[in-house]
């Protein structure tokens, strides 16, 4: 059987695209790594319906319930706990779930696999006890886990503020919030007038900040963060206001923004654009979400960070684009107008330029002794040394150091290698490329490949 569309990712963009595509009469298969729909933003949404966790997660989280229910009722085929490890032309997708591999075919593909937190290496970031804010929030959504002991948050952006508020709402403890943002700067202020179009979100952010300040937990202008400990995190060091400070710590949660997932579009050779404000690559797409590869669409944060509201609208837009591609007889331009998709999207993105200017990615050079590649344990010093005698191609670093060759395939080290190469070769960061990405997109076992062989024999 050949599906009209295979959607990868069951978050806001993927679910809304699937719902629309079903309404337009397309057959849809949605595959997702997670065991239940909702993506990271609405992770566990079907389980966290009531009780203290549901209350603490707040109204934006609860808004995911309606779309998730619509998705469940849409008639889209849904394959949870499934990894996509290879995508071939026009279009064959190789999947694994429950230790078994299989192949599915599609007339078109929508990548709505979202974002990941931007990895920012610092001394001690591989110690047990250090993890991302997003990780901690996922733990809260899955099983109601709260961090224990001396808990510190370090970083910048809306997510750490939201998470801190959620933890305090559940009577959890936070020893301190180390704010690494540069504070309100001119560039951000210039974007403020447009941001007023999304007054509720702006007000929410200010409220979170006020709550943290009232609790005396906010430390501003933090730099040179260091995590230390013997076999696990035990203490923190940072600089603020020119003074070096220390504190006991059991858990450190870090966050420096999010970046699109691009391994799939890189592997497929799509054109990508560099976002200089937020320092990430995203697949270039037209006004319907179609990439430079006909029939391959992107939507949501995977096509550029916009947040969940914009993601749901871009999912609807991509659904119309896909309908056009499939030759479904509908007036896609008229539907686009009737549903006010462009207006809704631009409202959803109104706050974004302000946030992007307020929370710029860190630019500090990474010290030589810091591990950059968590998998192969390659330090910044090793990368720098090779970079001095190599071209500015990250693949040369990979070949010489194994950096990016581990199971995460550069998902943690890619942008850091790029930044070090730019620094050594004195180039603008965006002029240095990302690693070449080749399938498999996720590590697979011989057993899984063998199961694919059995399947083909049976065909």
């Amino acid at each position, binding site marked *: 059987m050949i599906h009209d569309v295979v959607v990868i990712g069951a978050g806001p963009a993927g679910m809304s695209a699937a719902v629309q595509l079903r309404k337009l009469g397309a057959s849809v298969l949605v595959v997702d790594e997670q065991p239940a729909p909702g993506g990271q933003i609405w992770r566990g949404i079907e389980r966290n319906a009531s009780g203290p966790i549901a209350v603490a997660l707040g109204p934006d989280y609860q808004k995911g319930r309606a779309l998730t229910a619509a998705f469940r009722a849409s008639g889209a085929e849904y394959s949870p706990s499934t990894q996509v490890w290879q995508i071939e032309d026009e279009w064959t997708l190789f999947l694994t779930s429950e230790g078994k591999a299989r192949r599915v075919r599609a007339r078109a593909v929508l990548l709505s696999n979202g974002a990941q937190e931007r990895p920012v290496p610092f001394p001690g970031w*591989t110690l047990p006890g250090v993890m991302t804010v997003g*990780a901690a929030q996922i733990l809260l959504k899955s099983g109601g886990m709260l961090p224990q002991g001396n808990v510190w948050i370090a970083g910048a952006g809306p997510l750490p503020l939201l998470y801190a508020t959620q933890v305090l709402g559940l009577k959890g403890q936070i020893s301190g919030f180390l704010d690494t943002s540069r504070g309100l700067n001119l560039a951000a202020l210039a974007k403020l007038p447009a941001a007023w179009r999304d007054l509720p979100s702006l007000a929410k952010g200010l409220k979170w900040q006020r709550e943290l300040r009232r609790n005396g937990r906010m430390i501003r202008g933090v730099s040179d963060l260091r995590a230390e400990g013997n076999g696990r995190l035990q203490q923190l060091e940072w600089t603020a206001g020119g003074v070096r400070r220390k504190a006991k710590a059991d858990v450190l949660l870090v966050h420096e923004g999010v970046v699109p997932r691009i391994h799939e579009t890189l592997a497929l050779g799509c054109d990508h654009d560099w976002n200089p404000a937020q320092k990430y690559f995203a697949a270039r797409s037209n006004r319907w979400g179609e990439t430079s590869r006909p029939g391959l669409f992107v939507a949501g944060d995977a096509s550029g960070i916009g947040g969940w509201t914009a993601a749901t609208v871009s999912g609807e837009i991509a659904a119309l684009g896909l309908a056009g591609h499939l030759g479904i007889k509908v007036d896609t331009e008229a539907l686009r107008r009737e549903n006010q998709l462009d207006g809704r999207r631009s409202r959803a993105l109104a706050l974004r330029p302000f946030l992007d200017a307020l929370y710029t990615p860190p630019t500090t050079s990474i010290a030589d002794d810091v591990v950059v590649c968590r998998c192969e344990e390659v330090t910044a010093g090793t990368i720098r040394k090779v970079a001095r005698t190599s071209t500015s191609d990250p693949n040369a670093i990979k070949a010489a150091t194994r950096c990016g060759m581990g199971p995460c395939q550069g998902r943690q080290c890619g942008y850091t290698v790029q930044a070090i190469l730019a620094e050594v070769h004195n180039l603008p960061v965006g002029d240095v490329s990302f690693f070449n990405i080749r399938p498999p997109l996720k590590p697979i076992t011989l057993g899984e490949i063998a199961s694919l062989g059995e399947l083909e024999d049976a065909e």
Partner: protein
Amino acid sequence: MFRSVLEGPTAQADMTVLVNGAETPAWDGETVAGVLLRVPGAGRTSAVTGEPRLPYCQMGVCFDCLAIVDGVASTQGCLVPVKPGMRIESQQGAREIGR
């Protein structure tokens, strides 16, 4: 390091899993990575230097949650929900051949 808000003197766990052979309470919706964070010493060791690691990202992109789950090595723990009686074992270094 982490504790469920559902946990309490009277609250019952939803299930029991085996972590390196020891019976451990677990909650619906929790992943294997969540368990690794709650049980001291359950994490993996890194492939090159053998340093202790614990799950970092919970969203499938760091691979520091690798564990042996029901006999399958290099399972990404953050993508696998717990099930009653599940066997979770710490993974030492790189994947051993044949597992």
